[in-house]
């Protein structure tokens, strides 16, 4: 890199700085993508005639899904790993149907994704307050919990649980979903982190290496589990608890909820966001690479890999990925036979839909303005996405055909 020449005057220096700054922005913009977006907005207004000249600029390619075969490097021996290639991610299919209740403006900036619990969608604003959305009416109720709240929200024993901080003190709080009043809290913990609920109960991340199982009614600690690999994220399945190290750590641990002991550890994975499939398998992003991986729920053997598009994520996501490289971060979600993943590669907003079993990508949707605030969620058969932009939005997308 050639060092810059020193400008002769402050004005010249200012000019050089402005030019450099603008050039930087020009380098990062994607004119073709922006042109497609512009055409879509025109089409939306009904003023664009889909003329021949559009064809060259807006290419709607059919996703070519092909499959290759690799051999697993996981600990369970040589099992085939299907690699689903996503083909032309650069030319996503148009969003089918309509957005239902398309724009629900929220009371604050979205700090996290919406989470379904007790028949409502819940999410935290950047101000640490909570908004409750009625998915039927779109009505937003502002909740003032009296603490700085953090997601996710999970429902257990009639309470909606979330993490909260007041001063230096962190606890988990349970509120009545109807009255939105906080009715119970746990004892203070060193870290009030992720929460998950499932047949194996309510589990919470309470330290860098510590998980606790909590009583869903009272918040009492039922057991404390130490995870040598470290824990950042927790997911509760039918009879196991998954503890993902994440956040610069390594390893995914399968814990027996009855004994608190680990059944299996996958040390070579840097697990990012997790999603559980109904059959007990697990979709997770390996933070070291732009790919979603399907793991066998018991053996943690890697079965399917979906490569993700190139391009970096947002700054907050890069913070999460710190130490693992600068590539796109995807949030998976499994609904029935489908895997959904939202991601923000290189400033774009993509919602991917794939066969949850084979990893074959069937749809990639460009969803328009705003970065995703986190994973998509499903409620009442619709996919909900929360996005952050100048307008915080929660959008409901009609069921895909």
């Amino acid at each position, binding site marked *: 890199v050639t060092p810059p020449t020193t400008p002769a005057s*402050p004005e010249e220096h200012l000019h050089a700085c402005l030019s450099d700054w603008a050039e930087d922005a020009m380098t990062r913009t994607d004119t073709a993508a922006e042109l497609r977006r512009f055409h879509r907005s025109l089409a939306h207004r009904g003023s664009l005639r889909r003329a021949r000249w559009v064809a060259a600029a807006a290419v709607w390619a059919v996703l070519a899904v092909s499959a290759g075969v690799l051999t697993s490097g996981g600990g369970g021996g040589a099992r085939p790993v299907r690699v689903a290639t996503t083909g032309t991610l650069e030319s996503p299919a148009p969003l089918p149907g309509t957005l239902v209740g398309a724009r629900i403006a929220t009371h604050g900036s979205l700090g996290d994704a919406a989470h379904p619990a007790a028949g409502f969608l819940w999410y935290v604003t950047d101000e640490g307050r909570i908004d409750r959305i009625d998915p039927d009416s779109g009505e937003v109720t502002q909740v003032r919990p009296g603490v700085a709240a953090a997601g996710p929200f999970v429902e257990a024993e009639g309470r909606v649980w979330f993490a909260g901080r007041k001063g230096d003190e962190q606890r988990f709080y349970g509120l009545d979903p109807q009255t939105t009043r906080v009715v119970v809290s746990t004892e203070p913990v060193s870290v009030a982190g992720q929460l998950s609920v499932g047949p194996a109960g309510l589990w919470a991340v309470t330290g860098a290496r510590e998980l606790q199982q909590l009583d869903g009614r009272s918040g009492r600690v039922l057991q404390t589990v130490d995870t040598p690999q470290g824990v950042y994220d927790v997911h509760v399945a039918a009879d196991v608890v998954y503890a993902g190290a994440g956040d610069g750590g390594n390893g995914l641990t399968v814990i027996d909820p009855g004994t608190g002991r680990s059944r299996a550890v996958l040390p070579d994975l840097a697990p990012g966001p997790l999603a559980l499939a109904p059959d007990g398998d697990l979709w997770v992003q390996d933070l070291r690479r732009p790919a979603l991986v399907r793991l066998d729920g018991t053996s943690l053997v890697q079965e399917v890999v979906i490569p993700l598009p190139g391009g970096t994520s947002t700054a907050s996501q890069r913070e999460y990925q710190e130490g693992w490289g600068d590539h796109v971060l995807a949030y998976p979600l499994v609904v029935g036979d489908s895997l959904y993943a939202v991601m923000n590669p290189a400033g774009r907003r993509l919602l991917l839909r794939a066969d949850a079993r084979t990893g074959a990508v069937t749809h990639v949707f460009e969803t328009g303005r705003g970065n995703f605030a986190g994973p998509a969620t499903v409620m009442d058969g619709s996919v909900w996405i929360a996005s952050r932009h*100048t307008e915080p939005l929660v959008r409901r997308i009609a069921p895909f055909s």
Partner: protein
Amino acid sequence: MADILGFGVPRQRETTHPCALPEQRDEAVTALFVAHHRRLVGLARLLVDDQQSAEDVVQDAFGQLHRRWCGLRDKDAAVAYLQRAVVNGARSALRRRRVRRREDDVVVPDAPSAELSALRHEDHRQLRAAIAGLPQRQRQVLVLRYFLDLSEAEIAHWLDISRGSVKQHAARGLAALSARLEVTV
């Protein structure tokens, strides 16, 4: 038509304007988009706080141009129209964002590009931060003066302020940046 109900006289529908067929208008605006989009994003980025907003401002500018294409008497002035639309749009965007006071948290944060990462000009980074912290009007004036190389008269016309005000904003802006400029020059 008499405005007997007080709702205002209906305007003629845009699609009936004889100046251009819709296809021709689309074609012309698309050609401008391809030719000038990047440069306009660069301009917008100097006036707002993040890349996403800059791209949105440029989208809005082209949308305005498309809507008003038939009313544009001099088609050669389209680029200047776009630049002014970007400057005005950026002003509105910044105002909205600052009212919210959440600009650092709710937008697509700017990542250091490969170019910036490579150069790592600490002085430019600090100068950018200083420019971003200027009052909106001073920032606009400096960008128009030192990036677009507009004259004081042109800036005054664009921003609808007096030439004296342009001078004042430029002087104050430069003074505010002087410490940073002097240190690095």
